[in-house]
C-alpha cells in the first residue's frame, strides 16, 4: 500500500539519521557537556526530550490508527455525527498540563541554580568585536584573543560585553551561550572538567563575517595555565595600565635584522594604532572606544589561530592575511592604510612570528 510504504520509508530514514546523529565526532556539540553548567542544562533538555518522545509516539500513533481504521468509501453510509465529548476533552486538556508540570519544575529549578553566580571563581572579561573575541584576565593581567585559556577544575565567571554590535558568546561544551551588550555586563560561569581544545563561535548575527567569529576554550592543567599567564603578562596592556601589579620582566629587544625591520614596519606602518604590541610605544593600550581595535599582538605567535579563528596561525596564512585582509575576510576592520610591499610583508611576518 502506497501510504504505508511512504511512511515506512520516512520512519527508516529518520531512524538512520537519528542513529548516525548520535555517533561520530562533534567537537562543537551541545550534547556532550564537559562542565557543571552545561551538564545542568543537558539534564533539563534530556528530561524534556523523554516526555516529548512519549507524546510524539502516542499522538502520531493515534493519527495513524485513525487514518487506517476509519478509511471510508464514497458510497458508505454517513458516519455517526459526533460533535464532541466533554469528558474526553477535559481529560486531554489535563494530561498535557500534568506533563508540562514535570517539565516546568526542573526548568525553574535549573533557572535559579544557573543564575547563582559563584563568588569564588576566576573572572574573565569577554569582549565581542566585529569579528573576534577578546579575553581579559583582570587578576592575571592578561589580554588575549580568540583562545580563552582556563585551568581545569577551576570555576570561572565570564563577565561579558561588546565593543560594537550585539554578539553571543557560546561555549557549548561548558556553559551554553549569552548575548553581549555595550552598556551592561552579562555573565556565564562554568567549571571545565576535561583538558583540551574546544571550539565555539558567535551565535548572534553580527554582520558580514558572523560565520567567521570563532573562539576556543583551552582547558589546561593548573601548571600549564600558570606558565601561560606568566608568558602572557609580559608587556600586557592590563599590567601596564596598572590594573594589577606591574610586570618587571623586560622583553628582550629583537636582535635579528629582519625582525628589527619588521618592528619598524609595525610602528611606522600604522599597525600600532589598533594593536597593542609589547616593545612599542603603545604597548599599554586597551583601545577602549576604538571600534576598529584589533587583538593584542604582544604574544600573537603563541596563539594557534588568526583573524578571529578563521585560519591556523602559519607563516603562509599570516602572509595571505597581511597581503589583502579585505579579500580574505571582506569587511573586516583590519584595514591597511596602504597595500604593503612583499618586502614589508616578509619582515612583518618574521617579526610577528617571534612574538611568543
Amino acid at each position, binding site marked *: 500500500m*502506497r501510504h504505508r510504504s511512504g511512511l515506512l520509508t520516512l520512519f527508516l530514514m529518520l531512524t538512520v*539519521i537519528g542513529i548516525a546523529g548520535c555517533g561520530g565526532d562533534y*567537537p562543537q556539540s551541545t550534547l556532550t557537556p564537559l562542565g557543571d553548567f552545561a551538564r545542568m542544562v543537558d539534564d533539563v533538555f534530556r528530561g524534556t526530550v523523554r516526555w516529548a518522545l512519549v507524546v*510524539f509516539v502516542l499522538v*502520531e500513533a493515534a493519527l495513524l490508527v485513525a487514518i487506517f481504521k476509519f478509511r471510508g468509501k464514497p458510497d458508505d453510509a454517513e458516519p455517526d455525527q459526533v460533535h464532541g465529548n466533554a469528558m474526553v476533552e477535559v481529560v486531554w486538556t489535563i494530561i498535557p498540563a500534568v506533563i508540562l508540570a514535570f517539565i516546568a519544575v526542573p526548568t525553574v529549578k535549573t533557572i535559579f541554580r544557573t543564575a547563582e553566580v559563584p563568588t569564588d571563581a576566576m573572572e574573565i572579561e569577554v569582549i565581542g568585536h566585529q569579528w573576534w573575541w577578546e579575553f581579559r584576565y583582570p587578576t592575571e593581567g592578561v589580554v588575549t584573543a580568540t583562545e580563552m585559556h582556563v585551568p581545569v577544575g577551576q570555576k570561572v565567571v565570564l563577565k561579558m560585553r561588546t565593543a560594537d554590535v550585539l554578539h553571543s558568546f557560546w561555549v557549548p561544551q561548558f556553559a551554553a551561550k549569552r548575548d553581549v551588550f555595550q552598556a551592561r555586563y552579562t555573565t556565564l560561569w562554568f567549571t571545565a572538567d576535561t583538558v583540551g581544545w574546544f571550539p565555539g563561535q558567535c551565535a548572534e548575527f553580527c554582520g558580514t563575517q558572523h560565520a567567521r567569529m570563532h573562539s576556543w576554550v583551552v582547558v589546561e592543567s593548573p601548571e600549564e595555565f600558570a606558565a601561560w599567564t606568566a608568558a602572557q603578562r609580559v608587556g600586557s596592556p592590563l599590567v601596564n595600565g596598572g590594573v594589577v601589579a606591574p610586570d618587571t620582566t623586560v622583553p628582550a629587544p629583537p636582535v635579528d635584522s629582519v625582525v628589527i625591520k619588521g618592528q619598524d614596519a609595525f610602528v611606522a606602518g600604522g599597525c600600532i594604532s589598533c594593536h597593542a604590541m609589547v616593545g612599542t610605544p603603545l604597548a599599554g593600550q586597551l583601545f577602549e572606544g576604538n571600534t576598529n581595535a584589533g587583538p593584542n599582538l604582544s604574544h600573537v605567535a603563541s596563539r594557534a589561530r588568526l583573524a578571529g579563528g578563521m585560519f591556523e596561525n602559519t607563516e603562509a596564512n599570516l602572509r595571505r592575511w597581511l597581503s589583502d585582509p579585505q579579500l580574505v575576510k571582506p569587511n573586516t576592520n583590519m584595514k591597511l592604510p596602504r597595500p604593503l610591499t612583499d618586502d614589508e610583508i616578509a619582515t612583518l611576518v618574521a617579526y610577528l612570528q617571534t612574538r611568543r
Partner: protein
Amino acid sequence: MATSAREHAHAPAPSKTGLWSWLTTVDHKRIGILYGASAFIFFLIGGLEALLIRWQLRIPENNFLSAEAYNQLFTMHGTTMVFLAVMPLSAMLFNYLIPLMIGARDVAFPRLNAFSYWVFILGGLFMNASFLFNAAPDAGWFGYANLTSKQYSPGMNVDFWVIGLQILGVASLAAAVNFFVTIINLRAPGMKLMRMPMFVWMSMITQVLLLLAFPVITVALVFLLTDRMFGTGFYIPAQGGDPILWQHLFWIFGHPEVYILILPPFGIVSEILPVFSRKPLFGYAAMVFSGAFIAFLGFGVWSHHMFSTGLGPIADSVFSLTTMLIAIPTGVKIFNWIGTLWGGSLQMKTPLYYALGFIALFVIGGLSGVMHASPPADLQQTDTYFVVAHFHYVLFGGAIFAMVGGAFYWWPKMFGYMLREGLGKVQFWIMFIAMNLTFFPMHYAGLHGMPRRTYTYVAGLGLDWLNLVETIGSLGLAVAFTLFMVNIFVSFRGRKANPAPADPWNGATLEWSIPSPPQEFNFPEIPTVEGRDPLWTAKRKHGGPLPEPKRVDGSNIHLPNPSYWPLVTAIGMSIMLIGFMAGGLPVNLIGVAILFFGAFRWAFEPTG
C-alpha cells in the same frame, strides 16, 4: 450595502475583463486572486532564495555565495516568507472565503480592500527592488539593533527593509480592520458567532492579533527610521538608547505574528478534516476557545525569544511558564482534529492528505517548541539550527502544508475546474519526504553546534553530511512545487473536460452552495443559516445531493463600482514613505499630495 441589494436600482455593468478591470476591481474574489497570485510568486522567490542558501551550505567552506550575498539572501528569505508569502496567502483566503462562508456579497469596505492589496504589492515590489541596487536587506528578518544603526549598516540595505516593512504594515492594518468589521457585521441572518465556520473564527482572531501587534512593530520601525535618518538614539547605547528596546518591541509584535501566520492554517485544516471525514468538527467550542486562548497568551510570551539576553531568573521563569501554557490549547486542537477523524468515513482525497500531513508535522514543531520553552535548554538551542528546524516544522510542515491542502480544496470553487488528484498526491509524498529530509537533520545540526545565519561552516565539526542531506531535501521541495505548477498548467489546459461542480467535495459550508466559480454577487439571495454545517443540513433535508445551482442574471443586484482611487492612494502612500530614503522632503511631500488627493476623491466618489 450588500444585504440591501434589491432596493437599489442596478449600477452600470462594469467591464469584466482586461487589465483595467483588475486595476480598478473592488470584488473581494478578484482581490483574493490577486493576493494569491502575488503571494505565490513571492513564495517562489523566497523558495529560490532558500535553494541558493542550501546550495551554499551543501559543503563546508563553500565559495558559491559571498558572505554579503548570503546575508542578503537569508534576510530576504525570512522577510519574504513571513510578510510576502504566508501572510498574503492567508489574505487571499480571507478575501475569497470570508464573504462566501458568512453569506455576504462582499467585504465591509471593498475599496479599502483594494487599497490593502495595492499597498501590499507596492511594498513587496519595493522590498525586492533592493536586489537591483545590490542592496537587499542584510541584517536578518528580525533586524536586531544596533547592527541596524547607520554606524554598522551604512548602506541602503536596512533602509529598504525598514521602509518596505512600514509599507506592508499599512496593508495589513487596513485589511485587518476590514475583515474584522466584515465578520462582525455582514454575517447572513442566523449565522451566530458560534455557528461560524472554524476558518472564519480563526480569521477573526487573526485580525485581532494583527490590529494589536502591527502598531507595535510600526513604532519600533519609526524609532529605527529616525535613528537612521535623523540621528535619534532610541537603540544606540552611546546616545543613552538601548538595543534591548528593539528586541522587546520586535518580539511583542513578533510572537503574535507567529500566530498570525499559523491560526489561518488551523482554520483551513479545521474545514478540510470534517468534510473528508464526513463528520462535524470535534469539540467546536473548545476549538474556538483554544484559538482565542492561544492568541491571548501569544502576547505574554515574547521574551522567550530573549532568554539568552540574561533577563534574570524571575523573568525567565515567568516567560517560560506562559510559553509552556500555550502547549495546552495547542494540544487540545491537535486532539480535536484527531477526534474529528475518529469514527469518520475518511475520503482519501488530495486536500485530506495535506491536512493529515499538517497534523503529523505540526506535532513535531510543537514538541521542539516545548523543548526550548525551557530557558536552560534554550540557552544552548537559541540561534542554532535547532530553532530553524523547529519553526520550519511549524511554518512549512504546518502553514505551507495547510495552504497547499487549502489550494486543492478551494481551487475548484475559485477557478471552476478541478486540479489533478493523482499529481496532487504524488506532490504530497515528495513534499512530505523532502520536507523531513530538509528540516529534520537541522535538529541535529543545531544540537551539534551549528549556529544560524552563518554563510559557511568549517569542516571537522561533523556537520558536513547533515547539511548535504538538508540540501538534497531542499531540491525535493523544489520538485514538489514544480509539480504543483505543472498540475495547475495541465488542469487549466484540460479545464473543459474537468469542470468543477458547485459542491465537488460534499462540503458543509455556504461557499459550496453557489456555482464554481461564484458569480460576482456571490449569492442571488442572502441565505438564512440555521446551524453550523448549513449545507449538510440542507442536503439531509433534501435527501441527497442538491441540484446544481443555476447561474442567474444579477443585473438588479447592487454592487460597489470599480475604482482606481485605492490604487492612486496606495501609490501616494508608498511614495511618501520611500521619500525617506530617496529624494528627501520633496518626495515625501509629493507622496503626501497624491495620498490626500486620492483619499479625497475616494471619499467623495459616487458609489453607484
